[in-house]
């Protein structure tokens, strides 16, 4: 099953073109690592696939649903963890988790929420305001959302930033779990070593073109 199918995607900010005519497929069960120099448009591509921005040209579909016209359907199957942690500083970790799930139309019982927080290793801080969290703890809280929601498509923007060794291991574990349940993962990263532990394929976005690389070339 094809998770992401992009056809001739291009993006321009006014008269400044970031990339043009990108076409690629990502299958379910694949983890695609997107490399490239700063300013090449990795985050922009990820944001377009996350339906946060409109492409200037071309189209893409996620699990067979048009990403431009059927945004609401696409959003149900994907989850994005971007630079901003999407957390409210005044709410506790637990409340943030509750609210994030409510925004997805889900209400989950307290027990499994606590369980998810335990799994990502911040169960002890569940009732602390996010204001007091460290950057790594915020990342972990975001991962807890993935644990509960189990999205079919996971989009990660620089997932390894600000994470300690245990955090990296946990991120990779969660990525593997997503893959096992027939989901797909796309991440942008600079960290070749950490990404190659889980990535099944990848690409280098440079000069507005995407150069695909295989699993063998990655390692």
């Amino acid at each position, binding site marked *: 099953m094809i998770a992401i199918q992009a056809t001739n995607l291009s993006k321009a900010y006014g008269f400044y073109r970031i990339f043009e005519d990108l076409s690629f497929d990502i299958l379910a069960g694949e983890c695609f690592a997107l490399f490239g*120099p700063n300013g090449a448009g990795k985050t922009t591509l990820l944001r377009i696939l996350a339906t946060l921005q409109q492409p200037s040209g071309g189209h893409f579909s996620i699990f067979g649903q048009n990403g431009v016209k059927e945004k609401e359907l696409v959003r149900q199957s994907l989850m994005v963890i971007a630079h901003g942690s999407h957390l409210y500083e005044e709410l506790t970790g637990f409340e943030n988790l509750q609210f994030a799930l409510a925004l997805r139309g889900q209400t989950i019982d307290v027990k499994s929420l606590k369980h998810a927080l335990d799994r990502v290793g911040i169960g002890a801080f569940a009732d602390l305001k996010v204001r007091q969290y460290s950057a790594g703890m915020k990342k972990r809280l975001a991962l807890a959302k993935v644990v509960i929601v189990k999205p079919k498509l996971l989009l990660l923007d620089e997932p390894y930033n600000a994470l300690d060794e245990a955090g990296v291991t946990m991120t990779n574990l969660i990525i593997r779990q997503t893959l096992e349940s027939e989901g797909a993962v796309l991440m942008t990263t600079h960290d070749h070593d950490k990404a190659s532990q889980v990535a099944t394929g990848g690409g280098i976005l*440079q*000069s507005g073109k995407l150069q695909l690389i295989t699993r063998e070339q990655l390692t």
Partner: protein
Amino acid sequence: MNRFIRYIQRYKGWFGGAAAICLLVGLYTGLLVSPPDYYQGEVVRIMYVHVPLAHTSLLAYSILFGGSIWFLWKRDPLVDNMCQAASSITALFTGLALVTGSIWAKPTWNTWWTWDPRLVSFAVLLLILAGYMMLRRLVDDPDKQGIYAAVLAIVGGVDLPIIKFSVEWWRTLHQPMSISTRGISISDDLLLPLTFMSLGCWLLFAYMLMVRTQMLYLIELLQAKKGRLLSQTHFSQSAQ
């Protein structure tokens, strides 16, 4: 080149010419042929420029309103250009209607500004348009610029009749009839220049709208072309 831009280039001259003829006839009949008013004297001739400008600015805003809805529906960048063009021209016409109204008010009511419902409504309209033009400059993302501007234009368009009613009620409450337009009965002498000037102003608006739409489109086209060159050099540089 876009098909519509080519049509505009081909046919805009007709509109310009027709506007010029109508306005010249209107000016001639208005300034020289029509008699002065019994009460107001020669000052009544300001009406021939003030009233058509006011009408045209309302017509222009309704075109901006319609264009904004159309843009949100079809997302045609040319329509966005047209809306942007219409906003500046509407602002010009509204501003001129206010200025001429103010000049007219001085000899007739002996004051430059009165809180007349129509004057207030036009002032609010001018404020909305100023906000619209500022908003256009302040949106960084060019994709969002047109959408945000269209939203403002639509909300403003829905609001305008309500503003007019509320201001009218408010004035009649506080100053019943002490200052009102002295009854100028529209006789045939007045009707002729008024018709020509109104027609001329509408045609002039159409002509200006065409020219300005063309201008904004061409600016974007040139930028897009330059941008292609720019990003090509950017691509080749980062490839090295």
